[in-house]
């Protein structure tokens, strides 16, 4: 009988894996459109959250509409950042950044005022850091620190420092116990900001 053959378990495992994988792949394909729409919405929410007077109190249905109406896509003058404009003048920048976190990629948006110096806010739309440690970066306790910090007052655009040390104008405190997340986050934000600064040319007026 076939079941007694030594290769039967291998064939069985192979077949059963193929069957279940096929169903999972089919299922994923069926829901792909919805998942992509959700990801898009998460990104738009993150962008609105770092622009002045945009994020608060929106129902999920109106986020997409608000985004389309108010936010301008990146163009040459914005250095790759999304912008909020009033009568054609840039009011604020929302600069996306991403990079490898401790476990999985971290993606977020940093809001910068029109003077290209003051930070308005930071928000994340994708991360899978350790719950209770690295994942605390999405909490207001961490994010709110960035409000009204000034870029590049020290040696880096933004420094994430060990809690308890003295803070300069460009510094925020890290989440205790999440050293890896903090180091990686600092690097990815600074990379994005440095590239953006080079494109838009420093502070307003000088570029």
């Amino acid at each position, binding site marked *: 009988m076939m079941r007694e053959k030594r290769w039967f378990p291998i064939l*069985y495992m192979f077949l059963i894996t193929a069957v279940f994988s096929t169903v*999972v792949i089919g299922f994923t394909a069926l829901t792909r459109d919805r998942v992509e729409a959700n990801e898009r919405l*998460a990104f738009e929410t993150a962008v609105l959250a770092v622009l002045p007077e945009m994020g608060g109190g929106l129902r999920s249905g109106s986020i997409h509409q608000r985004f389309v109406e108010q936010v301008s896509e990146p163009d040459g003058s914005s250095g790759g950042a999304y912008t909020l404009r009033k009568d054609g003048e840039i009011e604020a920048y929302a600069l996306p950044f991403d990079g490898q976190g401790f476990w999985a990629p971290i993606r977020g948006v940093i809001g910068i005022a029109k003077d290209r110096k003051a930070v308005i806010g930071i928000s994340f739309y994708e991360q899978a850091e350790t719950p209770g440690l690295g994942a605390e970066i999405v909490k207001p306790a961490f994010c709110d620190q960035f409000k009204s910090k000034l870029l590049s007052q020290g040696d880096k655009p933004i420094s994430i420092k060990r809690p308890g040390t003295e803070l300069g104008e460009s510094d925020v405190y890290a989440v205790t116990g999440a050293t890896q997340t903090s180091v990686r986050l600092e690097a990815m934000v600074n990379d994005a900001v440095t590239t953006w600064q080079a494109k838009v040319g420093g502070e307003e007026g000088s570029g």
Partner: protein
Amino acid sequence: MSPATPTPRAKDIALQGLWRENPIFGQVLGICSTLAVTNLVLNTVVMCVGLVFTLSLSSATVSILRTLTPRNIRMMVETLIIAFYVIIVDVLLGAYWPAMRSNLGPYIGLIITNCIVMGRCEAYGNSNPPGRAFLDGFFMALGYSVILLIVATFREILGLGTFAGLAVPFFASPAWDKWIIMVTPPGAFFMLAIVVWVFRSIQQRKEEPAK
């Protein structure tokens, strides 16, 4: 323990899962997820629905394939089946309730390693027909859910003054000094220990006269 009957009725299977061999206070299985997701009632409900779905269907599937699966690779096959249902839950949440998916974070994926699921597939699904395996999985998961919801209800009310996000009279008012420790991991240990203690005491009192 009652003597095993050749064909247990659905009522017996239900009683087994919900009370006599309740996974949490009877077998003390699946404690990691109990501790992790029970600080908010809503998260707990979703976690429980996910577990009921996964456990009943994987146990039934293991049972359907039980005569075909070679004994020496059955654990691998069981893990594959469990993972399959968990991924389905994860994909569904990602598509229709992304906020909940990010709330639960890695814990949905960790249903795969929930010892209750593997335990029931091994102990019951492997040696019983699909219908009964499904019922056993369903009621075991329900027994788990009831305890989780009790723990979650106390933790959320005492710690945050809310129930499933809705303010509870008195506990939400300034008169109640919120026990923040209840929503942190240590609170879960305290609550779980108390719940296991209470239920085991009741169970023992009921069983003693029978001895």
